[in-house]
């Protein structure tokens, strides 16, 4: 039983320069307790996807088609008030920039307390401050925060980026969401702190059984955190499959090129193969498959039609090389 079912989702942004086709026909599921990692470069639509699921898109965005079924509810049919009740306890989101995630004028304690209070209210229980404090301390210990009693008395600017991301994850755990969305939560952090956070998320998934939608530009990070991987390019879903299959036997030429063009610590000598050109401008995307101008295997049909998502072994891939 899937917790989240996204079907044929398309999103555009209206801008003064024209229509930006940010996402096109995205379809995927996330099961209970599963983690899906979305990998993409800038402009691939990965953050748009995260915001679309939480219904936090800016006003100039528009849902063109598709549905988002979360826990048997179609999120796109909900009113703003009904959606607000899903956020936090249903879907919780951690953003990329730790510096702007928390309210700067409240202590960490008050911000975490609010999270607990909201959960108590939605569960129909009576809020007890002392009980809440002990719960907050125990969750901060769960996220491996040193000296939680001292940390909760501080303001956000007194914490480091790694500490804030831990507070955000702790807030998530206090709300007990079913789906945890993390939009590049480690990109602004140092590599040793990133490793700590990734390890923590993995432990929490195991202990609490939450589903995770993890967004990253670093395909190597996906290898650590994901059960399955989705590769986005210029708003198109190119490939979707288990982390093992996608990393070791990538089907789409873009995934193949991406995997071979990043420097790796375990790989030795030899020049890196490159992908020519650059990511297309979505105001005026290439027709057909959006990767075709950079693709080494392009055929005539690639610029004329968009390939369908085809299943090859256990991978879904959008490419004419695998027939239609």
């Amino acid at each position, binding site marked *: 039983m899937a917790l989240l079912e996204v079907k044929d989702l398309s999103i555009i942004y209206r801008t003064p320069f024209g229509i930006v086709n940010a996402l096109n026909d995205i379809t995927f599921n996330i099961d209970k307790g599963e983690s899906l990692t979305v990998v993409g470069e800038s402009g691939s639509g990965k953050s748009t996807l995260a915001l679309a699921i939480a219904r936090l898109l800016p006003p100039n965005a528009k849902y063109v088609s598709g549905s988002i079924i979360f826990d048997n509810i179609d999120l796109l049919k909900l009113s703003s008030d009904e959606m607000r009740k899903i956020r936090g306890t249903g879907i919780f989101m951690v953003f990329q920039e730790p510096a702007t995630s928390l309210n700067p004028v409240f202590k960490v304690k008050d911000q975490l307390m609010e999270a607990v209070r909201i959960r108590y209210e939605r569960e129909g229980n009576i809020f007890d401050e002392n009980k809440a404090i002990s719960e907050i301390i125990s969750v901060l210990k769960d996220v491996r925060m040193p000296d939680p009693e001292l940390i909760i008395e501080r303001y956000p600017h007194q914490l480091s980026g*790694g500490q804030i991301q831990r507070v955000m994850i702790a807030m998530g755990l206090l709300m007990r969401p079913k789906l945890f969305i993390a939009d590049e939560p480690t990109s602004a952090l140092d590599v*040793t702190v990133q*490793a700590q956070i990734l390890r923590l998320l993995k432990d929490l998934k195991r202990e609490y059984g939450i589903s995770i939608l993890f967004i990253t530009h670093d395909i190597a990070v996906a290898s650590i955190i994901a059960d399955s991987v989705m590769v986005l390019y210029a708003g198109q879903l190119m490939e979707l499959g288990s982390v093992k299959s996608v990393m070791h036997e990538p089907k789409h030429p873009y995934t193949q*090129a991406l995997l071979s*063009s*990043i*420097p790796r*610590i375990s790989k030795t000598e030899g020049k890196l193969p490159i992908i020519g050109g650059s*990511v297309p401008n979505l105001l005026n995307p290439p027709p057909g498959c959006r990767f075709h101008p950079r693709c080494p295997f392009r055929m005539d049909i690639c610029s004329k039609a968009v390939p369908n998502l085809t299943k090859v072994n256990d991978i879904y891939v959008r490419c004419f090389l695998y027939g239609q």
Partner: protein
Amino acid sequence: MGSDVLIRTENLVKVFLAKNYGIINRILREKPLFVRAVDDVSIEIPTGKTTALVGESGSGKTTLGRLLVTLEQPTSGRIYFHDIDITKARGRDLRNIRAKLQMVFQDPYSSLNPMMRIKDIIGEPLKNRGVRGKELDEAVAKIMGEVGLDYSSLATRRPSELSGGQRQRVAIARALITNPEFVVLDEPTSALDASTQAQVLNLLVDLQNRHNLTYLLITHNVAVAKYMSDLIMIMYMGKILEIGDTGSVLKEPLHPYTQALIESVPDIGKSELKPPTGEVGSLVNPPKGCRFYPRCPFRMDICREREPPIVEVKNGIKVACWLYVKK
């Protein structure tokens, strides 16, 4: 002193004021707070090779890079370029030395003046040295060709019309137009997409071979350091903790911090990471002994009390750790 060393530093120190220290603080007799961004660094950079300087944020790697190209004045210590002490150079001498020492900055979205045309950005260093007219245009066209930018279509554009990869090529062209010997590359690809990163890295290798350039590659990305460099230096809280040839250091890291750093790097096919505990400490009030002491799994009593000297452990690999000091 071997002739194959291009740049050498002796006990280089750079101290910044952590907080503004003005007349009011003076009247109130407050103590100024200092940050030792680069603390007693003695290194040698070999000619024609790439030396990677790897560290986390706040380790002082960018400050060290800026010191080497004379963009910062050291608080104490010496920098020798071709055995000439450049910390004492002034005026015309300094201008001539600076043409030989160039830097490519991290973020091509903020390092290029948005009001200037591409050909003016690239040509400015030469213009400052008195080159004008046709000679200047020819030099700009030549260097643009070398970094893979089309002169006829891009010369009169402005940075906002270029992609991230193209902008970084402009920054590289600007650094190379004075024909430098030494180039500091400060995170040259960290602002670029994965698919354009390889293009820029390969371009840098080609240019190095063609012009016999010496690179100092500043990066937090161990995988990029591995791909690009011959020699690697690991920096932590202003100190160099380990130096050696890149292959050996990454295969068999000796310093506990280097080991923890490498265990933290995600890689395709790797499913577990083993990061060190804790976070980088405060630079205003650093640990008295070894800087890594509070996070080190092998810490001993001596590590808290005294700073370890940097000693050669094997085949030219130097480590600053009490585990390797013979008593």
